[in-house]
């Protein structure tokens, strides 16, 4: 069997196509047919995320996302969930810095129901939104925050590092979950105003992917969404642009009850949608993706100073992306030992660039990630929305993997040299403290000294 440079003839898109449409009210629609399995994915991206929130109301976009499941004019209480699940579908919604998405994957013959449901809440959520839902979902979201962030070791690292990496007042300074104080402060009127401002057909992209009849699907979309009024109340997000490098190393030491020392860092990287961001993705993959990466080989295999070590990329379009380093130390190893090794590896990489084999490996890994993402109708629907909302062109989703494969070793080296430097990172160091149940003061000191 031939071992080409790409895994499939069409390099990930698998010969997929998508068509684009726009309703008179401004709703953008993307359709993509695939009749292999009798399922259809509906995905709706609203161009609003935590970056649109204002001071004192962090977490509102996400809390609002929960309220979207509390009924609308023709859908009672939890009806959205009940109807989709009762039709054999699955559904959810998520909120990030840059967007809020809602999605249903349905057996193909139930597609119309999902469209009807999405249209009902886009057009008439306020008819059902009340204090009771608001109070209930406020408590649910606060418990979500506790479960995912506050009650797990290192749970607030993401929040802390983001706050370091983006300065006070920057739209990405806070994360989508928001603070407990702001969640408590949000009012029903805030939620209503949020809906009136951001939830409009002209601020959304709807994609439908799978075993569909495009003409019929478009007719349903026109029928259900066509009469929803557009409006122009939307506030653009505050400017997220920042200089290419931080210009100094930011650092925070966290003393907490965690099981081991940890070193985490966020590097400021090029914005998503640029060739340089694909180059950065490849650089991070060579350095810290998987178990053949430079950092894994150095820290976990050779030095044996870390239990896990890796790099990830948080792709952002409206602000610099973040290269995310996460290292948990082994045994009693101290953080400076790890940090020195990382700086050596990053400096060496900037000096020499990736080898041809490392490039091949990193590109194969990223290509595989794309195959996974585009391998389900829901994944494809989400990517089509992403490129439509953030970059204005859904077709870019189908060629994304080709762009990654076109990046050269020189470009990878260039971005590493320019960005993966000690003066362009925010660092979070975890130092474990004794458990809180060592009540006696002297014992506590002894425990801490261990």
């Amino acid at each position, binding site marked *: *069997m*031939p*071992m080409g440079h790409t*895994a*499939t003839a069409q390099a990930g898109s698998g010969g997929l196509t998508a068509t684009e449409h726009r309703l008179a009210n401004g709703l953008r629609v993307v359709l993509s047919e695939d009749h*292999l*399995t*009798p399922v259809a994915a509906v995905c709706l991206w609203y161009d609003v995320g935590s970056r649109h929130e204002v001071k004192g109301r962090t977490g509102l976009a996400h809390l609002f996302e929960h309220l979207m499941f509390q009924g609308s004019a023709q859908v009672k*209480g*939890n009806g959205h*969930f*009940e109807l989709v699940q*009762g*039709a*054999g579908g699955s559904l959810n919604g998520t909120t990030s810095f840059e967007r809020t998405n809602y999605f249903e994957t*349905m057996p193909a*013959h*139930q*597609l*119309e*129901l999902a469209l009807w449901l999405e249209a009902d809440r886009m*057009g*008439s959520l306020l008819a059902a939104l009340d204090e009771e839902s608001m109070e*209930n979902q*406020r*408590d*649910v979201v606060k*418990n979500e925050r*506790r*479960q995912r962030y*506050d*009650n797990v*070791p290192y749970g607030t690292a993401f929040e802390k590092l983001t706050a370091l990496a983006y300065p006070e007042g920057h739209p990405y300074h806070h994360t989508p979950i928001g603070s407990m104080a702001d969640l408590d402060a949000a009012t029903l009127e805030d939620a209503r*105003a949020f809906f*009136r401002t951001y939830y409009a057909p002209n601020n959304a992209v709807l994609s439908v992917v799978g075993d569909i009849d495009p003409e019929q699907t478009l007719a349903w979309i026109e029928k*259900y969404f*066509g*009469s929803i*009024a557009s409006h122009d*109340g939307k506030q653009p997000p505050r400017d997220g642009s920042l200089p290419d490098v931080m210009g100094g190393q930011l650092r925070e030491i966290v003393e907490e009850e965690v*099981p*081991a020392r940890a070193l985490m860092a966020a590097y400021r990287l090029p914005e998503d949608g640029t060739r340089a961001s694909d180059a950065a993705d490849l650089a991070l993959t060579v350095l810290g993706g998987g178990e053949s990466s430079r950092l894994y080989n150095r820290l976990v*295999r050779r030095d*044996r100073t870390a*239990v896990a070590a890796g790099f990830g990329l948080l792709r952002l379009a409206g602000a610099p992306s973040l290269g995310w380093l996460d290292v*948990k130390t*082994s*045994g009693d190893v101290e953080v400076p030992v790890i940090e020195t090794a990382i700086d050596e590896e990053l400096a060496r990489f900037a000096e020499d660039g990736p080898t041809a084999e490392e490039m*091949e*490996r990193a590109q*194969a*890994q990223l290509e*595989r990630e794309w*195959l*996974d993402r585009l*391998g*389900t109708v829901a994944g494809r629907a989400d990517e089509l929305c992403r490129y439509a909302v953030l970059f204005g062109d859904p077709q870019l989703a189908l060629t994304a993997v080709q762009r990654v494969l076109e990046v050269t070793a020189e470009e990878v080296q260039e971005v590493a040299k320019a960005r993966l430097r000690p003066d362009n990172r925010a660092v979070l160091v975890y130092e474990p403290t004794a*458990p*809180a*149940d060592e009540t006696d003061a002297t014992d506590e000191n002894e425990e801490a000294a261990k």
Partner: protein
Amino acid sequence: MTELATMEFHAQPQAGEPKPWAFPAPERGSLDNGLTVLRCHRPGQQVVAVEVLLDAPLDAEPAGLDGVATIMARAFSEGTDKHSAEDFAAELERCGATLDAHADHPGVRLSLEVPASRLAKALGLLADALRAPAFADGEVERLVRNRLDEIPHELANPARRAAKELSKELFPAEARMSRPRQGTEETVAAIDSAAVRAFYERHVRPATATAVVVGDLTGVDLDALLGDTLGAWTGSAAEPRPVPAVTADDRGRVVIVDRPGAVQTQLLIGRTGADRHDRVWPAQVLGTYCLGGTLTSRLDRVLREEKGYTYGVRAFGQVLRSAPDGTGAAMLAISGSVDTPNTGPALEDLWTVLRKLAAEGLTDAERDVAVQNLVGVAPLKYETAAAVADTLADQVEQHLPDDFQATLYRQLAATGTVEATAAVVNAFPVDRLVTVLVGDAAQIKEPVEALGIGEVTVVAAE
């Protein structure tokens, strides 16, 4: 701000004509070396999934060496007779492949996923790992240290900590199931390359292994490919191995794992019950879904959507081991996290939900929605090759026929409200549930004692 103009409303649409879909039937065969092979062509699935099951259960680990199956599973990808550990990882990633391996009660599983065009290369690497693993001293020593480093991280995770405590409570101390799957600090520290090799030689051979291959196999000569790769693996014939029956102590009681200052309490409430060889299984699946399968199920309707005590509580049945002779069992459990001050009220509501279910039963409407969901989501759930391969491998591991899942969908559709009620009430009897709470004992002990759901003991988190 003025209210927006109203939209034009339409009646809720009716469903169209359903298109036929069935859980895929695999083709079963075997290689000359005795390896059983299940294959399944899934058009369009460019990422092929290969699952290999080894009859190397945790129960077979030698005394004092809990975790040796885990270390062996991990060591498969740490070098062979052809590649060093670093080279092996590099070659796999060069194919865009991932290889995971883990050990559980029924045996060891290796899961390979790779783009179809690079299947040949990746299957070759997988075969090398099984046929001629290096198990080099230095690599095994590193895996042991790495595993020891992981343990404190797991104990600090409330959900993992709760699972560990529940196993310890439910199963007799001498049963392997009572102890952590991946070993304790003491047992893992005792593992070396000789122990790993001895376990491999005793329990790993093609005659007792099965490979499941699923994906778009267009243009792939799978027979030739398997012959050249997994076909080159040799080993002795299978020997029968006795399996002890699963027994558990489900007297109603509460164990609090103390985590002072915790802002939430992790709940894990469980016992053991019918597994997939039991005729009640479809009704139990259906009833358990109605109790806590999703956020519109009974538990979350109260605990989340009415009271806001939690982000979500789920009830589930998870097979521990399943065998035709009735020696197997499933873990039946309810899990979730609730905020610390509401721990008592949340548990009280949870028990009220269970009592009400026992007293009044499920409604027909509830049963209908559950069936429509469980059966209706099948084509979505099994869209990827990996999902199909995983279920086929589960069936093999649990000694079930290859059409088990396909049959289960028909059985679910034919299960009535009364049967589903009986099954779930039997599965979650209010006085025979072991409750593990990982949380702040100083704050939750008293309110939990007041509920009368069993004797309350407190243990240290470690």
